[in-house]
């Protein structure tokens, strides 16, 4: 088994627009939780991870310039991450296809965790 990180990316506008009415939100929430539960039941979740605030600070360069988020230059913001266990990258990608963020115009970035061999 190898480890992968799912990075959930979407724009603020897209995530808000995708939410829709309270009843649609209810459905999105159910889909999210069902997807997470299914991954967990199949033993694919190493760590459910964390949601991230959509704003923060950027510290940049030798000058240590500090600027505010949200990051105007990036189209999408990472809203959270999950640590996944899968056979290989192909399986990790396949499992990510059920992520509800895709319905709302967001994307899942699937990144293999570099193995740290002793």
């Amino acid at each position, binding site marked *: 088994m190898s480890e992968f990180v799912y990075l959930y990316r979407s724009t603020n506008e897209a995530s808000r627009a995708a939410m829709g009415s*309270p009843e649609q939100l209810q459905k999105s929430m159910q889909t999210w939780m069902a997807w997470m539960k299914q991954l967990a039941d199949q033993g694919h979740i190493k760590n459910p991870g964390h*949601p991230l605030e959509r704003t923060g600070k950027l510290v940049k360069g030798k000058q240590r310039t500090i600027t505010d988020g949200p990051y105007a230059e990036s189209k999408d913001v990472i809203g959270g991450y999950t640590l996944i266990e899968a056979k290989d990258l192909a399986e990790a990608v396949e499992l990510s296809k059920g992520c509800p963020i895709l319905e709302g115009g967001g994307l899942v970035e699937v990144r293999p965790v570099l193995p740290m061999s002793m």
Partner: protein
Amino acid sequence: MTELHEHLFRREAGRLVATLTRIFGVEHLALAEDVVQDAFCRALEVWPFRGVPDNPSAWLMATAKHRALDVLRRERTARTLAPELARVLEPDEPLFTEESIRDDQLRMMLSCCHPRLSEAAQVALMLHVLCGFSVDEVAGAFVSTHAGVEKRLTRAKHVLAESRQLFEIADGADFAARLPAVHRALYLLFNEGYHGASPEVAVRAELCREALRLTGLLLEHRVGATPATYALAALMCLDAARLPARLDAAGHLNMLAGQDRARWDPDLMAEGQRLLERSASGPELTEYHLEAAIAAVHGSAPRLEDTNWAQIVSLYEALLALRPSPVVALNRAIAIAQRDGPERGLEEIAAIADRDRLGRYPFYHAALGELELRRGRGAPARGHFAAALALARNPMERQFLEQRMEACDVAPVAVERMG
């Protein structure tokens, strides 16, 4: 992990908007709606990782409160808000109690029934602000366009904002005076679900459920719990009990005569009977009392032929005296047909004074068709059903009326009121 309660967000939307509007002032309804939307966004970001919180309502209220504080600190609107506002919204203030949230919803409900708003606008506003229906969902419920509903809601919110403050429920006399308008709006909301034009079974059941929930809020309040409110709640329960048999899972419409009574909801039926008994506690006799009593007579008949038609006829006569309407007169005539035969029913229909007003009503023609069919005259019956079919408002009604037309070629069948 806590389960996600059904319709949690729809219910919470109404509760949160009502409470935040009380705090911000009714002219800042849009701000309250924004803050609630933000809290919901946050829930969607956090709950999938952490699970549903133990107390989702408190979580959402606290999140909306924090969000409101952010907005107040940042935006100039803070200056136009009441000075005590910041204190109320301080993070260490205790969370709002169930009682205060209920009162906030009552204030909003009574505010929505503003005399300057049409009944249709009042109902749309309640659905949107208090029941968490989006513009599209309101449009779906009323078979109206998005643009039409949006325009109606914008105008209604404008009237609400101009009233400067939410309706004050502490004044019992004002509350009592506004109550008939609220009853009427809730009655219309329920009927939109029960008799309405939406072809979506789920949407209609939700409208009935929301009307019942809001009526329940009135019953929890000292001034709101009048005999008329009990009667209205009884009527809703007794009618809602028949909803599973009226609309089957496939969305097929079944009139009372053709309903499988085993599918009536016995709990709602019993609750309706209990509420009807509670409603008989004062001198006031409202149309809701009479309609609930009619529904109770139907509900207590195990089979169609066990129905006490004489009692139903006399209840319709009392209703006609209280609120004259050609539809009530039609229902009385149909009940007379059940008691005395189809010829007597047709005579009564012919004698309805303002019968021309029924011309656009599909079930007027359907009633004529049923009575002709029952006295064995298939050809005119077929013609009446065809006229009804031309006026049908949705696929369910069309399908029902097509089946009745086919029945004209087979055997006579019993008939009864639309219900």
